[in-house]
């Protein structure tokens, strides 16, 4: 695994900061079906995005699906709540460092990671089994590969398990108060 230290320093550093990605805007996670994933490459199926590009969204959806697939212990997976769109809604558009870091990691996963394990093609084109296996290989590889794995894992887990739709499946009843986001009163300069 000789390519583990080729990430730009800024991407590497940003993705070490993986657990608690900044959140800013109003979230309204649209629901899409599990079957919807196959079509996410089509521009028409991409939801309105605030920060990510359609390509970012497509790759992030492929990553999310591998980290939190549908089925298993409980039915809901990342695609069922359109986790990539939820993450997009929380990325502050003004945080260019963060956005560049996310994009760098997604590009690494999509284009570089498959070749590191002898696979041809793009990450997002692999089967879900191969995508999960590839992510676990990155986890165990050390260096930047592990950092990118950890970053994307943390990003996805954080926003998945803070989603109301997921809580019933893990026995968490959610907040005791039912309130929207805190208001940020603003005025022009």
């Amino acid at each position, binding site marked *: 695994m000789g390519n583990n230290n080729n990430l730009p320093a800024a991407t*590497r550093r940003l993705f070490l900061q993986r657990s*608690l990605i900044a959140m800013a805007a109003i979230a309204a996670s649209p629901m899409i079906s599990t079957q919807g994933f196959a079509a996410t490459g089509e521009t028409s199926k991409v939801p309105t995005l605030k920060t990510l590009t359609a390509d970012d969204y497509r790759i992030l959806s492929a990553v999310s699906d591998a980290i939190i697939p549908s089925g298993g212990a409980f039915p809901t997976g990342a695609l069922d709540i359109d986790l990539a769109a939820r993450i997009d809604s929380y990325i502050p558009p003004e945080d260019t460092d963060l956005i560049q870091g996310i994009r760098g990691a997604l590009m690494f996963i999509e284009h570089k990671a498959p070749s590191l394990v002898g696979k041809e093609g793009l990450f997002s084109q692999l089967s879900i089994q191969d995508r999960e296996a590839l992510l676990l290989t990155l986890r165990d590889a050390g260096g930047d590969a592990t950092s990118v*794995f950890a970053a994307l894992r943390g990003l996805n887990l954080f926003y998945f398990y803070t989603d109301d739709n997921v809580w019933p499946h893990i026995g968490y009843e959610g907040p005791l108060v039912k309130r929207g986001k*805190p208001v940020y*009163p603003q005025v022009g300069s």
Partner: protein
Amino acid sequence: MIIQGHEIFAPLKLKTHSVVVGSGAGGGVAAYHMAAAGLDTVVLEEGGYFQAKDFNQREEDMMPALYRGAGRQTTTDGMIYVWQGSTFGGSTVINTADATPIEAEVLHHWQQKFGLSELTEDNLAASYERVFKTLNVHRLEEKILNRNNKILLETANRLGYKAGVFNSNRKGCIGSGYCFTGCAYDAKQGTNLTYLPQASELGARIYTDVRVDRIERLFGNKYRVHGSVVERGTRRFRHPVEIDCERIIMAAGTVHTPAILKRSGFDKGLPQLGKNISLQPQIGISAVFPDSEKMTSWRGAPQSIYMNEFDDNRAEHGLGGFRMEGVGGMAGVFAQFSNSIGLDHKRMMQQYPSTHYSALLVPDQPTGTMDWEWGPDGKVKPKIQYTPSEEWKQRFRRGMKTASEFLLEAGAREVNFNSPVYGSITNGDQLSRIDDYPVEPGLVALTSAHVQGSCRIGLDANVGVVDQNLKLHNLDNIYIVDGSIMPTTASTHTMIPIMVMSDRAMHKLAHGA
């Protein structure tokens, strides 16, 4: 009077006697004492003004509102998250309301190593009394202790280990479990509900959404504070601020107090500025118990019980050893406490109600430094440089082994850590694996909720930044009252130590002692 940034429509120019920079544990206490002494006082807080009605008990919303850098502030290598509050009330709004004193051994250590003869238990006693009264410090009520914490106490009792229930600064707590995201019931008695409103009643003007950029020294040991009214959330510049004053009390925290002093050019003659940082790193642990053993970690006081059998506090080194403390109330963060993905991870999270969460706290020696870089906006940006020592890493691994053994003894089926690479521990035969767990950036996620140092107390400028009365060594009329003044880590929780040190110095200053 509390003035929020969006209520300011033009450049702000003020004159006052005392400016307090920051409204957390140290700044809140200082603001109260200055106002109580009848001094015209202005408090400047970069964060926003949020109240109980704003707290929605959701991590993804409240961390950007209340935490410095939305909770993403880390050391430069990314290995350690440095959690600090950045809101009206500072970290006292987002902590778990645990009230621990400066350990006696720590004071002895400061006396022996640094010659700080004035910082004795006797000399601090009056401050403890005042602070405890204001904050309603008392032993946590039994009714809000949850199973997640109690299992530490029960297991410790069975093993003959030391453990205990925290004292706390709550009032009328219902045990909702959301301390980390601000108390929606005004039960946690932070400075936002105690010292700051009292200071306001006494005439202090408290500005939120105002960042201090630098301080200019004027003729006659007076100062001009240059700041910016910022937009809440983005913190983009809105209006300039200039405040002429006679006294400045810095309470912007271990990271930003030295950064402001550096930006102001006050670092000359202060060789210790930005050095000697302690992070007291901790790691999150999850332990899956049988389904019948409901932990319900998200309800009740999140952090109410500690297991301190392995504390090693001595006058030679201050805090040492390691300890476990229960923790709860952040599903999004705690979901990361393992290395699994896919169906394995979902299986683990399905057992969330029967999963115990705790933190392993491993005190450190003050070895970190604050470095600086000039940002594109022309301002100095702080960079926290910190590498754990080999001795610390050994103690950390010993702590992980002990915690694993302890939780398996308690009945856990598997123990996991906040690391993408550390595997699960399911039986005692696997403990030796921990010897090989890497403690390196990217391979483990540590958290510091108790960052201290960077402007430590010392008898002169060669060893410290402030004196025992917390006055800057090289300039008159500038004081520092936040966690940055601690020569070494003061306690396992730092709110009370900071408040007590601030109270002692500010009470003396206000009374001309």
